[in-house]
């Protein structure tokens, strides 16, 4: 496997380690290996976040028939740098009467778990930062720290908007954690492992989204994930029309940027974990790389925003990559990031389509629909495992369809008779 484009990053790590092995003692090598993974993740996470803001602004603009940022650099590509610089040099305001320590701790507490989430995600074949045996448990545990961070920030701001936003946020995150976790239980049941690498390997033959229980769990988990990272249409905690900006109303400068970083990183992590658990992670059909390169070449050739020399250089690079690696299958990490960014696109798509839910609709969705549905889904996964292929699939699909119909019927809003005013006549 080594020497292929698929293992490019693994090979690079091995090369660095063998170089380090000449000067460092053998006992230090595991630490250097870990440090490399940590360093790469810690360095790449802010870059991912910065360009996620760019991507989101570009995509949402297209949904609204606009162009989006295009002033700073080609296609607005330097916009995130300009924004970061602006955030850095802005004054850091702490409201009078606020708790300065907690006010600082809030955004830090939000960013750290968001970056920690990336430690266990398998970005490609042999490319997980740490293959924990309890990786999934780790993800769920670390992911729920963000509610503490949000409440810390909201409480410490000494502002009613912040506090209200934080309270809404905690209520929402705790509510949606329940169906989120319950939907993941099915994956653990079927694969028998909590290691994310193990879960991906179990999907070699079939992605879990193509099973009846997997489809339901995929939607339930993704929806809960969107709600947990406070994104539209579940962005009640930062409802700007009601709460100014929710829990980060009183934040400015770099602290505000940290809130945003945490939010975008968590959104990205949710997409990555959903891709890992249900969309087969880094698995993908064995399509030769030149297919992808041809599409990229067509896009480069048609990029009117770039000058002709830039396009020529891009085409030459792509042609070189095609000559070197064209016959190989598309590397696992491209599959993984492709799936993740597809889910990111869905996030933006949802944001571009739906207005914010009402508080009771939001809670009702979690408790009255998603929770029973995921409970039934656990039973469906059990049936799917217990019976052989056609019977198990049919039975679990039937079970889930019945539960869906029953829940819809039970949750139908009461249609009241038009009120008659007896004394009005």
């Amino acid at each position, binding site marked *: 496997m080594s020497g292929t484009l698929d293992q490019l990053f693994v090979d690079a790590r091995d090369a660095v380690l063998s170089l380090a092995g000449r000067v460092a003692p053998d006992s230090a090598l595991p630490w250097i290996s870990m440090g490399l993974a940590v360093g790469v993740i810690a360095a790449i996470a802010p870059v991912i976040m910065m360009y996620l803001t760019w991507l989101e602004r570009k995509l949402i603009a*297209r949904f609204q028939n*606009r162009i989006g940022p295009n002033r700073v650099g080609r296609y607005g590509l330097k916009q995130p740098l300009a924004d970061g610089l602006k955030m850095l040099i802005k004054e850091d305001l702490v409201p009078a009467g606020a708790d300065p320590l907690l006010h600082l701790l809030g955004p830090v507490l939000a960013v750290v778990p968001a970056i920690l989430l990336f430690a266990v995600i398998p970005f490609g074949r042999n490319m997980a930062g740490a293959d924990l045996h309890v990786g999934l448990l780790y993800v769920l545990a670390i992911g729920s720290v963000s509610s503490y961070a949000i409440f810390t920030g909201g409480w410490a701001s000494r502002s009613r908007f912040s506090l209200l936003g934080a309270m809404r946020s905690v209520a929402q995150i705790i509510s949606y954690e329940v169906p989120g976790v319950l939907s993941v239980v099915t994956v653990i049941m079927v694969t028998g492992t909590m290691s994310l690498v193990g879960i991906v390997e179990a999907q070699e033959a079939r992605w879990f989204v193509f099973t009846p229980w997997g489809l339901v769990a995929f939607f339930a988990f993704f929806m809960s994930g969107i709600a947990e990272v406070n994104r539209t249409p579940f962005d009640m905690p930062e409802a700007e029309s009601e709460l100014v900006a929710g829990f980060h109303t009183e934040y400015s400068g770099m602290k505000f940027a940290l809130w945003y970083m945490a939010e975008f990183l968590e959104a990205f992590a949710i997409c990555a974990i959903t891709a890992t658990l249900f969309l087969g992670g880094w698995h993908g059909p064995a399509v030769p790389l030149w297919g992808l390169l041809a599409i990229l070449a067509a896009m480069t050739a048609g990029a009117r925003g770039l000058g002709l020399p830039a396009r020529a250089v891009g085409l030459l690079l792509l042609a070189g990559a095609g000559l070197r690696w064209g016959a190989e299958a598309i590397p696992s990490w491209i599959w993984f990031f492709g799936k993740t960014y597809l889910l990111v696109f869905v996030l933006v798509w949802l944001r*571009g389509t739906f207005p914010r839910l009402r508080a009771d609709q939001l809670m009702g969705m979690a408790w009255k629909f998603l929770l029973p549905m995921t409970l039934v889904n656990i039973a469906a996964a059990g049936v799917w495992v217990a019976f052989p292929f056609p019977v198990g699939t049919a039975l679990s699909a039937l079970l889930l369809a019945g539960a869906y119909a029953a829940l819809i*019927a039970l949750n139908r809003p009461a249609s009241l008779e038009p009120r008659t005013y007896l004394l009005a006549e």
Partner: protein
Amino acid sequence: MRRLIGLGVAKGLLATLREFLGTYGPGRLLLKALGQEGTNGLTTQEYPERPQQHAERFRYFPFLVYDGSPDNLRCVACKICEQECPPQCIHIVMQKDEQGRVAKAHGRTFPAEFDIDTSICMSCRICVDVCPFDAIEMDNRYEYAGQDRFGRMVFDRDALLRSNEYFRTIKPTEAAGVDRRLEAKQKKAAPAQGSAGSGDGS
């Protein structure tokens, strides 16, 4: 179940996806192949790079119309617009000769000074409506900036002069109407005055 729950969600998502695809060339081709045309496309006007498209009726500050050469003004300095102007931003002085009698050019009196303070003008178009000679019209230029209040912001006679051809290019419909009116007026005046000279509109 009368309708499938979640169908509306899918419909909404499809509607936005169609608009999204409609902003890209290949996306438009795809939509065409699927028979899903009629999206808005990109509606952004990249204004500083490309001139903005505005409706013909868009108006900003008034200008003075001349026919042929810049000294052949339609304005006779009658001061009706000065009196009617609600924010009183127009200032007119009629040209007099040394003896204090009105001077004439092309058979008409004409203004020696005609100033419009554009920082006061509210673009109401009343001056255009009251002018009996169609001598003042509304321009659609708006990219004006100055560093002092009374320098560039007060347009004098020379700054306000525009040819009738310019008027025809910026507002074809309105200019055609004005031209027709002036022509009719000229024809009516012609039998009374005999052979009217060119540009002798009054």
